[in-house]
């Protein structure tokens, strides 16, 4: 594929992510921060996010597996996850976190487990999307083009 086509499909894909609500305005802010002095900024942030989220989700699974669930701890974890996801603009993950927090307040274990499932699901989805996005970027760079900025 030539560079132009790659760039176009990159833009299309990014637009679709925004359209489907996976990402919101915050992500575009992140993209703006990427410049010559900081060429890998978005990649670094997103990778960090995924690392963090994996750890948090594991912690959550463990916490909810307990006999006596400590809702305060669960809430703390979810809070962290919410913070991270809103920082990078992962909209759907963030919204799920908000719902999760409500369940924690109500101390409803079933609901919490359900929310956890949903978070895992959303997270995997998002991870997938990002992987596709980054591979597209790599292809563009390999083909010698520049990554187009989303208007």
């Amino acid at each position, binding site marked *: 594929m030539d560079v132009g086509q790659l760039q176009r499909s990159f833009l299309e894909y990014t637009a679709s992510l925004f359209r489907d609500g996976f990402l919101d*305005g*915050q992500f575009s*802010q*992140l993209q*703006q*921060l990427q*410049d010559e*002095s*900081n060429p890998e*900024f978005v990649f*670094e*942030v997103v990778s*960090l*996010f995924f690392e*963090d989220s994996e750890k948090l989700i594991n912690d959550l699974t463990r916490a909810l597996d307990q006999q006596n669930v400590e809702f305060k701890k669960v809430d*703390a974890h979810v*809070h*962290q996850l919410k*913070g*991270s*996801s*809103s*920082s*990078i*603009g992962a909209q759907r993950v963030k919204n799920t976190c908000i719902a999760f927090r409500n369940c924690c307040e109500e101390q409803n274990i079933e609901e919490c487990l359900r929310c956890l499932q949903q978070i895992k699901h959303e997270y995997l989805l998002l991870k997938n999307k990002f992987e596709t996005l980054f591979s597209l970027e790599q292809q563009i760079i390999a083909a010698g083009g520049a990554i187009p900025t989303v208007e």
Partner: protein
Amino acid sequence: MEACNCIEPQWPADELLMRYQYISDFFIALAYFSIPLELIYFVKKSAVFPYRWVLVQFGAFIVLCGATHLINLWTFTMHSRTVAIVMTAAKVLTAAVSCATALMLVHIIPDLLSVKTRELFLKNKAAELDREMGLIRTQEETGRHVRMLTHEIRSTLDRHTILKTTLVELGRTLALEECALWMPTRSGVELQLSYTLRHQNPVGFTVPIQLPVINQVFSTNRAVKISPNSPVARRRPSGRYMPGEVVAVRVPLLHLSNFQINDWPELSTKRYALMVLMLPSDSARQWHVHELELVEVVADQVAVALSHAAILEESMRARDLLMEQNVALDLARREAETAVRARNDFLAVMNHEMRTPMHAIIALSSLLQETELTPEQRLMVETILKSSNLLATLINDVLDLSRLEDGSLRLDIGPFDLHGLFKEVLNLIKPIASVKKLFVTLSLSSDLPEYAIGDEKRLMQIMLNIVGNAVKFSKEGGISISAFVAKSDSLRDPRAPDFFPVPSDNHFYLRVQVKDTGSGINPQDIPKLFTKFAQSQSLATKNSGGSGLGLAICKRFVNLMDGHIWLESDGLGKGCTAVFMVKLGIGGRLNEAKIPYASRAPVNHVWTNFPGLKVLVMDDNGVSRMVTKGLLVHLGCDVTTVGSGDECLRAVSNEHKVVFMDVSVPGLDIYEVAVRIHEKFSKRHDRPLIVALTGNTDRVTKESCLRVGMDGVVLKPVSVDKMRSVLSELLDHGVLLESQ
């Protein structure tokens, strides 16, 4: 005779006397027995009787007396010993009881008598109270009448209605035959009958004011009884025998100008009206005290009501007058505006119209000068040029002055080269001076700034005018120009006592002195120098030229520059010194544009970059921390990141200008950290600015942040532009005025 135990009566029985005694004793006994019964009966009936014990005693006494008399009945005839014994016993008892009662009565009777006295006293009191109640009732009646009258009087502001109503109501209330009001005439010499109730006398009838009876009435504010024969109480002869009593009272006529609330009404008025009230004749009625009081009160009320009416009339008149004046003023203003507009139009037109031909003349004459001319022709052309230049100057001056007059001239403030200006003046004047063989020196003081802010063109004009004058009026010698910065002691000039220049940080006063060795000025002429078109005879020589406007214009310009100008001369032939001071701004470089700084409004320009700004970011969420760091790095800051409160406290130093703290960390860590930072840096300018980053929009979070001394609260998510403006505002103001 039989021997019996009977007792013989004392004396022989006399039949008739015996019989009478018998009957009397019987009746006495009867009475004596019935009295206690009656007493008991009546005391039982009455509720109050304090002396029951006395009653018993008395009863016993009476009963025993009765018994005695009853038993006596048996002793008239032969009676047995038993009867005698019973008789004796009864008598003894009676004696005992009567003595006891007698003794008792000594105590009782005074009390009983005093009861009587008290009763009398109470009766008197009751009578007195009755009288007083009668009085109060009368007063109340009077009061009611007065109120009603006052109400009637006060319900209108029309003089005539007031007075008429007064008379009518008074007449009704007091059932008067006649009620009349006499007003003083304009001349004040007579009293004229103005209003009457029943027209006993013709209205317009006058009476001189100086009558003794009238003076008597006027001298007191009480109602005075006057004789029915006095001229004011005259009435049509009605064939009645007994004219009713007449009372007169004064009514003060108050004027707005002499109304004093404390003196009223004694001292503040000289004019009184007279109210005369006549009771119906043949009615044998007398003026009662309360009726007199009523009259007095009404007279006062009438005075007040009349003055109100007068004041109202006055104010209505004043208002009408003001309205007229307003209209007139409006008209005058519009006319003036039209005139000004007309003049401005005229000037604008003339300005253009006059300058155009002048320009043509001057241009063409100077061109002509360049061509080949014979000497006569050259002379002529030069004259033409000189004259037209003069005319052009005159036109300019006149137009300038008229603009200065109506204040429409504005100075062209801008930075300029001060030293350069003086040099230019020197250069311009040197040729002319050298032609007249005059030397010119210029001395600038060392503390004179190189650049200043002011109207360069006009300042030049002033300088040229003054120096030009100096050259013009000097035939020999020279001109020396000196300029320096006016210091406070030299600021005050004895010739200008009301000129108080106050130098400030941004301004200085430039003082320029131009000294010439010319013909000097007569000190008497100095004040006239600055008036337009005035030239003293000694100055007006054939060669002087000029219109006399120059100095006037200079003065106007100097005044516009907040300065002062004056001339000094020791006399004719002794030269003259012109001094002026103007206020100039201290100028920086010529390319610095000073923008006035509005402290409250946000700064107009936003910094685009903050190179090297040291910032500390505290956030326990790795991703969020990285994003914020990226944001700040993008804006050029030097960012340090920490993940907890303790690390933050360890890392913070006075090199950091701003500390961003993410508030989404649950717990009070953040506030603690803020407080500690405050403690660590006691001096305000050492301390970094603390800003909270939070996703919470609620007021509680915001207030808690501000309470612990944070300098601002920023709402996440933060965009690049938002961060940029936040940092700009922080650095300019030191605090975030609005939470973003």
